[in-house]
């Protein structure tokens, strides 16, 4: 694609690879910052290089797929990435790993290098995914809170609102696994911010991880249209990753005037007082890797009344990022263990993103330890997650009356 010589463009995202190659000095620091890159023995630049080399050596998509598939280091580097940006943080040029890996996943998806079972349950732009199925099976609905006209459909019996002040975006994990907490937060947001509507979609991060970048952006664009239709001027996000995705989508859709604000910042701005005492024992904040600039962490610490920043666990991803669990499930567990290991017995680990909370809870179910695992909203509100019930529900829904249906729609 680059050369003046006629070549067949086999890689869809070759511009991204060339951009990275142009900016990478091949110093190797990124490799040392990441277990997956270390295992692959590749720098970010070498990932881009290997993809372009594979293209050079191929004449058909099938051949390209075979060439990439025959390079286990490249597959490891692309599919083993949590998108945590530890490598980017260490890169003195701050070269963007997310751009690179998302692009590579798009090409992997196109070339059939990501097995269907790795993504079939997280197509969150479809009617059924793991979250909507969970909610349907367990009767978790929010029609009464979805006051704007939902994209492409109108909520039954409820007039569409275009005069909302605020749109509340709990994100997929909170909306699915914490319905009481979702409702309590919603009520508070409305009480403080005025007429509010609920956006109960997923931000599409799982689509991006699976290589469906365009579909993820299209999903966010649809959500942006929902926000436009609601008239809301503020979008309150619980998860920093959702906030990032929606900030970009709103800008892209000419809705830059809609302020995307984290829940903690919103509550602080409205003088909210936490409804709970802080738990006994030491508190360890777990920075979410999608909280790139640490704003959510800082705002949460302020709202929780910490003077200065309490002990904070950095060190990359909780284990849920980048759909690595579908590729190397053992690394999800290892990553969660790595982060939780910073918290001593008797302490509480406080997460920024509900999916981090879920991931730690899942790991602690498998490997119990004497620490508490809380999303920050659980320290602010009376409701909380009931992970025992959630995991029981998740496990149980594959059996019994819904089992066959789930296997059909998500299989």
């Amino acid at each position, binding site marked *: 694609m*680059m*050369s*003046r*010589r006629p070549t067949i463009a086999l890689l869809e995202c070759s*511009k991204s690879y*060339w*951009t990275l*190659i*142009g*900016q*990478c*000095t*091949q*110093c190797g*620091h*990124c490799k*040392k*910052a*990441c277990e997956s890159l270390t295992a692959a023995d590749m720098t970010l*630049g070498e990932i881009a*290089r290997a993809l*372009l*080399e594979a293209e*050079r050596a191929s004449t058909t998509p099938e051949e390209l797929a075979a060439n990439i598939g025959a390079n286990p280091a490249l597959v490891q580097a692309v599919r083993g990435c949590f998108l945590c*940006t*530890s*490598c*980017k*943080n*260490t890169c*003195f*040029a*701050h*070269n963007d790993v997310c751009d690179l890996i998302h692009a590579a996943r798009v090409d992997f998806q196109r070339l059939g290098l990501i097995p269907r079972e790795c993504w079939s349950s997280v197509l969150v732009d479809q009617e059924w995914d793991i979250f909507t199925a969970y909610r349907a099976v367990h009767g978790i609905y929010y029609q009464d809170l979805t006051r704007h006209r939902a994209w492409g459909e109108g909520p039954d019996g409820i007039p569409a609102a275009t005069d909302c002040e605020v749109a509340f975006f709990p994100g997929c994990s909170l909306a699915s696994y914490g319905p009481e907490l979702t409702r309590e937060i919603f009520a508070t947001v409305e009480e403080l911010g005025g007429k509010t509507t609920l956006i109960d979609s997923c931000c599409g991060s799982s689509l991006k991880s699976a290589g469906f970048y365009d579909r993820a952006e299209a999903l966010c664009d649809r959500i942006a249209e929902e926000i436009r239709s609601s008239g809301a001027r503020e979008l309150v996000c619980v998860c920093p990753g959702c906030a990032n995705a929606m900030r970009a989508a709103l800008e892209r859709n000419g809705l830059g005037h809609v302020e995307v604000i984290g829940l903690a910042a919103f509550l602080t701005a409205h003088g909210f007082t936490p409804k709970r005492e802080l738990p006994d024992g030491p508190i360890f904040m777990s*920075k979410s890797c999608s909280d*790139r*600039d*640490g*704003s959510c962490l800082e705002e949460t610490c302020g709202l929780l009344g910490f003077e200065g920043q309490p002990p904070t666990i*950095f*060190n*990359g991803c909780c284990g849920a990022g980048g759909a690595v669990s579908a590729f190397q499930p053992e690394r999800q567990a290892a990553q969660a263990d790595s982060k939780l290991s910073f918290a001593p017995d008797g302490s509480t680990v406080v997460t920024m993103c509900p999916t981090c909370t879920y991931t730690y809870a899942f790991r602690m179910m498998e490997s119990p330890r004497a620490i508490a695992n809380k999303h920050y909203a659980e320290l602010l509100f009376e409701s909380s997650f009931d992970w025992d019930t959630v995991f029981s529900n998740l496990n149980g829904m594959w059996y019994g009356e819904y089992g066959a249906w789930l296997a059909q729609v998500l299989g």
Partner: protein
Amino acid sequence: MSIDATQAPSCAARPATSGVAIIGYGVAGVNCAIALRCSGYAGPIRVFSSTSIPPYSPILTSYYAGGEKSYEECFPWTEAELSDLDLEVLADCPVEHLDPAAHLIATPRGDFSYSKALIATGARPATWGYPADADCKPLVLRTMEDAERLKAALCTEPRPRVLVSGASMVALKALEAALARGCQASIVGVNPHVLDFNAVPETAARFERGLAAKGVKMRFGTSIASVKGPEGGPYAVSFANGESEEYDLIVVAHGVVSNLDFLPEGTLALDRGLLVDRFMRTSDPDVYAAGDIAQSRELITGESRIIGIWKNAALQGAAAGKAIAAELVGREPDGSDAFEGSFITNTIAVDGTLFISAGASTLTPERRAVIEESEDITVARIYERTADGTERLVGFNLTCDEDIEGSRAYDMGAILTMRIEKSLRS
């Protein structure tokens, strides 16, 4: 590695429509070529290189001198990648004269015309301040040739006693190479601390403690006054503060000077570097500039400055390439093609002591530094008072006693860099 000079044509001017000329074969030039090709430009790209060495990373030269990288590892781009760009590279062909009015580039091999030209000739080390009558010709560190000389000198037995003059990034990289080779190393700088333009005293002091722990002898607030000794050393070095010491090798890192000697005075708008707009266009609409010779918008102050760092050169080169490609098809470059400016960022580790900085580091009446010291890290945040009475983060620098990739110090550096970007956006 070397470029095959025989591939270059011998001479002769080409028609005015002879495509894009890139003067300088470094990171800015390569990224310009990449952007041109990625933007669909299929015409000729002629690159003028003053050397026969392919484009390399100046950042890695100290790793090579210090033994951390092999020679081959200093070249970020493979032959296949450079071949894909389909460049006509004129190796060992320094540009002697640029005539923007005539669209002509004069070289020892003759004159070449161009439609659009990028100047990306970079900078060379300066030795100003080093005694002109010194008996020792100092080494410098910039090019692969410099690194080869330094490596050879550091590898002699017995290991030389090394004096590094200067206290900025390049000086510290040279110091690191000397330490890596097992040399006894000293550093001297005219300012009160190491990292003179990048650190507040507290973070600099922590870095100095790290250097001292590695046995580095430091002299600050002084300079080399004289160097006496036989050819090949040892050299008796006298300092301006009256002290003296004997060394076998002297490395000077006193800043750089732009490689613009081929440009007749008054040809293009020039301050410390060539003045460019957001598309890297100079005062001549068909001449662009990128990298260490381009003076573009520094985002903290809004002033026009040279920011001589790798990423800046890469982004500027790419912006120039995109803009050139747009203009060559009759399209005005748009915002997505632009380089909107940057601020300085630095990361350096010397034998386990890590320093990261971004943005402003000097204090003014409008600025204050908030210093946090913990067991292993010192962080200075620089805040600036704005017109509306609020404060914004405009810089930080931190020193950590450990250099562990992926560690909290690196995360903090990234977080604070993004905070600066965010405060600039708002």
